[in-house]
């Protein structure tokens, strides 16, 4: 790194800086790559699917496209899965599919540089650590808060999510 001038170092950092959409699940704050987000909509009651896991609420009509809706709060047992006028759905474009994810609230779009991100420690949780790309610390005024960065594509396409037909089964 010593060979790089500060300008060059800045350029490298800027190139790697990514924008994240942040949302809340219970008391936790998560961030996902904004490029995977198609739009944010208010919640509408989906059509229930028989024999679907509890976190898959059903399907909705999104301008003529049938889109499954996943409640991440149910999936990770975080927060109260209440559905009201303020419940939002993040419509994601992952693995060539359109999927809606229900969260408590959408907070912000933040730019996060690689140096803000720390590797997540191994822990036992409902959320498999392999879906977490890192923990970012975000400073807002005096306060500093932690953001859990998710690999939303892997999470949604994973076998546990039950959204995709698994090749094996």
């Amino acid at each position, binding site marked *: 790194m010593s060979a790089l001038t500060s300008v060059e170092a800045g350029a490298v950092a800027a190139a790697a800086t990514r924008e994240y959409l942040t949302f809340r699940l219970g008391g936790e704050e998560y961030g996902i790559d904004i490029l995977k987000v198609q739009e944010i909509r208010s919640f509408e009651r*989906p*059509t*229930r*699917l*028989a*024999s*679907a896991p509890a976190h898959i609420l*059903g*399907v*909705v*009509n999104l*301008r*003529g*496209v*049938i*889109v*499954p809706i996943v409640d991440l709060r149910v999936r990770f047992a975080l927060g109260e899965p209440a559905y009201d006028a303020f419940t939002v759905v993040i419509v994601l474009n992952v693995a060539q*599919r*359109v*999927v809606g994810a229900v969260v408590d609230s959408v907070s912000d779009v933040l730019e996060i540089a690689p140096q803000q991100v720390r590797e997540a420690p191994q822990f036992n949780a409902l959320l498999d650590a392999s879906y977490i790309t890192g923990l970012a610390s975000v400073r807002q005024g005096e306060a500093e808060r932690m953001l859990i960065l998710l690999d939303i594509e892997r999470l949604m396409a994973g076998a546990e999510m*039950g*959204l*995709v*037909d698994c090749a094996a089964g």
Partner: protein
Amino acid sequence: MGEISNAGLQGGFDLTQFHGVFFEEAGENLANMESLLLAIDVESADAEQLNAIFRAAHSIKGGAATFGFADVTELTHELETLLDRLRKAELKLRREMIDALLEAGDVLRAQLARHRGSASDSPDARDLIGRIRALAKGEVPAGGDGRRVLRVRVGPLADAAAADGLAELFRDIPALGTLEALDNGALSADGFREFRVTTASPDGELLELFSFHVAREQIAIEPYAEPAHTDTADGRADAPRSAPESDPGYGFFVDPQTLRAESAAPAAAAPAMQPQQSAPRRPAANKPAAAGSLDSTTLRVSVEKVDQLINLVGELVITQAMLTQRTRDLDPVQFQALLAGVADLERNTRHLQEAVLSIRMIPMAFVFNRFPRMLRDLAAKLGKEIELKTVGEATELDKGLVEKIVDPLTHLVRNSADHGIETPSQRLAAGKPAHGTITLSAAHEGGSIVIEVRDDGAGLKRDRILAKARERGLAVRDDMTNAEVWALIWEPGFSTAEQVSDVSGRGVGMDVVRKNIAALGGTVELDSAEGAGTRVTVRLPLTLAIMDGMSVGVGGETYIVPLASVVESFQLSEGMLLAVGGSGRVVKVRGDYLPVVSLAEFFGVPRDGSGPKDSILLIVEAEGSRVALLVDELLGQQQIVVKNLETNYRRVPGISGATILGDGRVALIADVAALVRRARH
């Protein structure tokens, strides 16, 4: 002809801008001519039909002359001469004439394709023109059966044996003619093989048959004993015989003055010069290509645009439904105008949706219509009598699927005709009527479209297939079930002419058929009974098909049951359901005991205790068996667009797809076939 096109260009018109319209119209005219020819009764030809065929040929000629397509003009001119004598009853219609006219249609199509630039070469028409001339003079054409001698060059090939299939073809189909190798079975220096073919079949048919064995691009067919040549429009335009003006046949026209003007004048001037009184007599002829641009009836639009339209209209329907809901409680006196407007909006939106949805859908008739001609030619060549029956031509199917199913179906029908149906004498000996029947049917079933190709021919021979399979080194046992034996047909090893059935090899590219159908996400099954016939069932998923559905309510949820599978419905009354073996329930309907499936249980619908419960029995049928579905209420019938759940989700058992209801909600479509299977096992 050359001068005419020049005159047109010198006149300051760029005629090329009208080419598209001409090709479109000529294509319609050719299709029209072909269907008329196929429908005509040789014994008692209807003057009106002959007139219609004449008009079609004449329209093509007029347009072709305008644009300077000399070869097309020449051939249609000969057709006109023959047809004119026929419609004036100066000649009696004969079978050879229909054959020649049909063949001329094929040649014209190829010539037009060449002018449009979509094909590089068109077949040589000289022999055909000679035959048509002879027929028009009332002679039986030279050679009696219209046989010609051709030089067929195949290559470049990697292996000389690749062309051996051609020889087999001629061995298997005696009516095709004869084939001799001109090269002792070895490749020439540049990798070509040459054959001398004596045949009565048109080039197009030969090409189609040959292409089972070698790629179409590798085949060149030309007349034998003439120096190799390539025809160009200019080359033939110079021939003096091609100038229609000098031909005495022209004297037959109703109004020679008018017609001469029409074919000789630049297109743009033609309509103006057309006297009014001749119009009713020749409606097709009085719209030369240039004027036709105004009444062109079709438009090519990309499928994405249509899909976008469908989705946008779906959004509109939802917005409209929301408006209707919001205005429902308004005072009808105070808001009379607004409410009337909302009602109009609702009606117009519905009509718009129906119209837009119908754009992508085309009936199966589009596919089926090509088979009468094919079978007629095939039957004549094979010396068989074949009747074609079609069922369910009106079944609508997504355009994309229709286009892709044509080739596999053609293969299957050809196989049925070639190897399924026996010769009349064999059939009579077996106690069957002399003419065989091939039935094509299409129907919506469950989440699929089922297309069947059925013949009442000889059927497959189990022991022969087993023997063949052993020879090919496939693992077979004598105690395999019939279904397992028939499945061997689809193995790649069974392709090309193998002696499986009576004539030659059922299995010409059957593995390819299966592969193509699998690529569409479909399945294909074969069932056969020796002596009774063979049935091939193709099942395709509905990617986007319109379906008539019955909406049923179950505990506040709405499901769609395909109307095609609904037999009847009735109110459930006390004591109708009978318990069997503890948990099973049956109902007696018209003397039959049908298993009962509760949709609420099957789909695990949560019940809140209000409203009617399991009060209606819906009898549905799939795959030949019936079950009774227990639902809460019937909500009505509607046409729905089937959407695939798997685009963004995965398969759900018992659900074949989803649709969007008028209010924007998603309703799931019950997979009746799966429900029936579940109930029966």
